[in-house]
């Protein structure tokens, strides 16, 4: 099955890979040709060497950031879904929660992280995870709340004709109808969670994680190592995005059928 997929999509794989390789080669050649200083732009080969030599450090930092992003993402998804369900059940709550959620999410991360670090201390990962959760919560809350309201009216009328209870309507109509909205939200929120985790590490807290390492490596005299950390950050973001996409394919297969080119 995988082989068949690869064969059918050969062109879709070959072209981007070739493009990426050309980009890296061009970069290497350009830096050497113009003799650009490493602190401005190191060559891909030197970045690779650094990455190879310090792989254990990079892996450890990526795990810290990845865990923060993942825990924050999960908490944000759960909180966002619960909030959206409550808001759907009680109209008043919707009017109360929406502005609060919007207000909280518009506080700059720079400020919020500093405040959270003061509240929870600089020796643990709680402030970063909370920060990620807040960002994710807003995206999920807004989307799922909307998805719950946009149920198919025919389906809702049918449920009424079956004398279904409010809970049955929620479980059998509103939640499945909101699933495509939830997965759209997760696709947006997953890379956002990773970025938020990195950015949170810039502004205090424990001295670990990819964000912290990037800033110290660039500020210190090891630009190639800094770029190796950046590359790891890119990979981490991509992994989150890819997994979110895969989840959508598995969880809401009917959504794919609605997409038109």
């Amino acid at each position, binding site marked *: 099955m995988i082989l068949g997929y690869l064969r059918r999509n050969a062109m879709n794989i070959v072209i981007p890979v070739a493009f990426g390789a050309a980009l890296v080669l061009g970069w290497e050649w350009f830096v050497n040709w113009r003799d650009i200083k490493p602190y401005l732009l190191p060559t891909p080969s030197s970045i690779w060497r650094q990455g190879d030599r310090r792989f254990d450090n990079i892996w450890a930092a990526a795990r810290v950031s990845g865990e923060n992003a993942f825990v924050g993402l999960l908490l944000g998804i759960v909180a966002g879904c619960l909030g959206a369900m409550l808001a759907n059940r009680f109209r008043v709550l919707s009017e109360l929660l929406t502005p609060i959620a919007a207000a909280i999410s518009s506080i700059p991360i720079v400020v919020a992280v500093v405040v959270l670090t003061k509240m929870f201390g600089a020796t643990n990962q709680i402030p970063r995870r909370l920060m990620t959760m807040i960002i994710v919560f807003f995206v999920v809350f807004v989307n799922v709340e909307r998805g719950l309201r946009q149920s198919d009216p025919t*389906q809702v009328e049918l449920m009424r004709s079956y004398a279904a209870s409010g809970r049955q309507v929620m479980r059998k109509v509103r939640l499945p109808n909101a699933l495509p909205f939830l997965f759209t939200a997760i696709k947006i929120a997953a890379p956002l969670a990773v970025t938020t985790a990195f950015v949170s590490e810039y502004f205090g807290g424990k001295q670990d994680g990819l964000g912290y390492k990037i800033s110290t490596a660039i500020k210190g005299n090891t630009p190639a190592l800094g770029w190796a950390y950046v590359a790891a950050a890119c990979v981490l973001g991509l992994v989150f995005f890819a997994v979110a996409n895969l989840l959508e394919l598995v969880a809401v297969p*009917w959504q794919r059928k*609605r997409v038109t080119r």
Partner: protein
Amino acid sequence: MSAVETTTTTTVAAVHAAGVGKIFNAGSRKQVDAVVDVSLTIQSGEFVSLIGPSGCGKSTLLRLFADLIEPTSGTLLVNGKPARQARLDQDYGMAFQQAGLFEWRNVTKNIELPLEIRGWDSAKRKARATEMLDLVKLSDFAGHMPWQLSGGMQQRVAIARALAAHPPLLLMDEPFGALDEMTREHMQAELLSICAATSTTVVFVTHSIPEAVYLSDRVVVMTPRPGRITSVIDVGLGTKRDDDTREATEFYTKITEVREALRGAEVGHAARGIEDR
């Protein structure tokens, strides 16, 4: 007339409406008299169509029967009970113009849905779904997902779902409105044979005159603003209707009769939204 009354007192009417009215936004400037003073008795086993131009209140009347909305005046009994009680008892099945299938459930699971709500156990549900699939001739598609079916097949699943609990009454709101002409005629014939097999009473909203005449024992003609019944036409094409029926002289006579009733009712209004096909 008295003969009819004596025979009907023995069985409970499927629908009994007396002076039923529905006013939306009462008292405001946007007040709409959707249905006014409707009195209608539909006997059990009958096939009755509601026909009329857009805005004549035929869908509103159907929704009143289904207790999806409540009347503002009059009394309404379904299966001899208040409409609300009939809904709570799941005395009727319903089908709409949109099949309204649940995309995340396969065909069988869609048909099982009303039974699930009733709390049937899974073996019983499965058996009934199989029986219903057989009835609508979709046994080969039990495991298919809704998006894999054509419009006509989706509508057949919707009908199977509406009838899954064997309700005595079937309420249909332009169920074939979105289908092409060929599929539509085919579905009409199928619906008749399904109803004959299950002896279900049907109230059928349509804006197609031939459809109403072909399917019905009686055609109820309605007019808009305010929505009211202007005439009730007995069709009487007999119990056996097939493709020859569509060619028969009586068929055309009845079509003309319904059309004239609609025109007569439409004094001052253009007969909008009525199809002659």
